[in-house]
């Protein structure tokens, strides 16, 4: 308790350094949080899209169910499809009604005859799409083939870019925070050099001398990570209606509070590690106790 007061006294003595350290930590972990949220959100969207059929094959109006089943079997025998689902005209109408339930005037005008029967093909691997396409391409009964595979590909690509970009940016910011902690702790040590030397001569252990600096490093970490987590939570809360509108049927909200608790704990752990290692380097560099 006495040493915590000592740490607060140190912070009060030169508050600008403390503010710089807290801002650096907050900024670093706020951007980290944003990237984590984007990556987790990206994964949810990707999973949603992956659960949708990779290929949708629409049939002409006069094609019989037997013919459709024949084509379905042909696809299944390739062994490249995880599942092939037959969607009848009636089922297509049900899906249509569900999708446009908010617009009854649109639903009223449509009957099952207007909609084509289709096969939803779920492939094992995205690269198998071309192989399956070859099997169904020249069938006269087919009116249209839709490949949402490009969306998955693009999303995978963007998630990857986001991950690499985030990693580079967050790593750079963490290095900056780390250097700021080293500098702030170094200045604090320089300010107290005389006191430290006297404490050393009257029998203070290295740990006793170092403790207030470590407490300070941990303090910056905890405050920075907490502020960052709070800002991220507030930002998501504020923008959630806009984000949900943008994502349409892909449900990402409400985000579990557990996610934010884990994020906060993870960031506190990382931030205090940065604080402790930064202070350790400063102590090793500037505090040569004989």
């Amino acid at each position, binding site marked *: 308790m006495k040493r915590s007061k000592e740490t607060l006294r140190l912070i009060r003595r030169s508050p600008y350094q403390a503010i710089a350290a807290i801002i650096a930590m907050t900024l670093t972990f706020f951007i980290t949080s944003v990237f984590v949220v984007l990556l987790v959100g990206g994964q949810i969207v990707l999973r949603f899209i992956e659960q949708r059929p990779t290929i949708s094959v629409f049939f002409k109006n006069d094609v019989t169910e037997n013919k459709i089943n024949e084509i379905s079997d042909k696809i299944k025998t390739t062994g490249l499809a995880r599942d092939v689902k037959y969607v009848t005209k009636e089922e297509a109408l049900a899906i249509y009604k569900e999708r446009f339930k908010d617009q009854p005037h649109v639903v009223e005008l449509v009957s099952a005859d207007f909609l084509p029967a289709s096969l939803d093909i779920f492939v094992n691997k995205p690269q198998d799409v071309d192989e399956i396409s070859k099997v169904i391409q020249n069938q006269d009964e087919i009116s249209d083939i839709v490949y949402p595979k490009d969306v998955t590909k693009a999303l995978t690509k963007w998630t990857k870019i986001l991950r690499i970009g985030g990693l580079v940016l967050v790593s750079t910011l963490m290095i900056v925070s780390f250097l700021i902690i080293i500098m702030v702790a170094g200045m604090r040590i320089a300010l107290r050099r005389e006191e430290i030397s006297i404490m050393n001569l*009257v029998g203070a252990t290295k740990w006793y001398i170092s403790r207030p600096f470590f407490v300070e490093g941990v303090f910056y970490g905890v405050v920075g990570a907490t502020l960052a987590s709070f800002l991220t939570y507030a930002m998501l809360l504020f923008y959630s209606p806009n984000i949900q509108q943008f994502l349409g049927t892909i449900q990402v909200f409400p985000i579990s509070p557990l996610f934010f608790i884990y994020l906060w704990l993870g960031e506190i752990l990382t931030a205090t590690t940065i604080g402790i290692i930064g202070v350790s380097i400063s102590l090793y560099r500037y505090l040569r106790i004989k």
Partner: protein
Amino acid sequence: MLKFDSVYKKFPSGQIALENIDFTIENGEFIFIVGSSGAGKSTLLKLITRESIPSSGRIFFNTEDIMKIPKSKIPILRRRIGTVFQDFKLLLTKTVFENVALPLEVLSKKDTQIERLVSEVLDKVGLLDKANSFPLQLSGGEIQRTAIARAIVGKPEVLLADEPTGDLDPKNSEEIVKILEKINKEDNTIIIMATHNAQIVNHFKKRVIVLDKGKITKDEKEGKYETE
């Protein structure tokens, strides 16, 4: 008991600070280490606190070889040795009370215990009424007494005083040595006082070790310091 056994100290520059130092100080002794500036007095004291290490030879504190104490245990050694520094080494931003309490703070003593022990030693050195003053508000003699109070508050077995009368007038100098003598008698603390103040040395008639260019030239009980 403190024993120097063939101690030799050479600085990295090649300058020899101490040469073949041999002496034993028994418990309860009061000795003066005398010699002109650069004779090696301060170096000798620094060897006792492990601020410096000898190039060869051994130093025993009771039966323990000081040089064999692991680095992590040096703080424990320093708690058994009180030091009054030539430049006082008081913290100007702390009061007399806080300065004196420092060795107890590092031992994480309770506030009530600190209060009692600090008041006791301040009373002993006659500074109880100055407990809340800052070092800059004190006279030279009071500053030196604060430094002594800080050195003895942890009840050390040995008290090292490096030129404690260096900047003081004769009256204050005598006052300081009288306080050291009182500590020596009341607490049976070994007192080692480095000085080049011949008047003080000759007045108190204690054991005197004379250092000249790093060598002991004289070691006498109730000795004198004769300057040219």
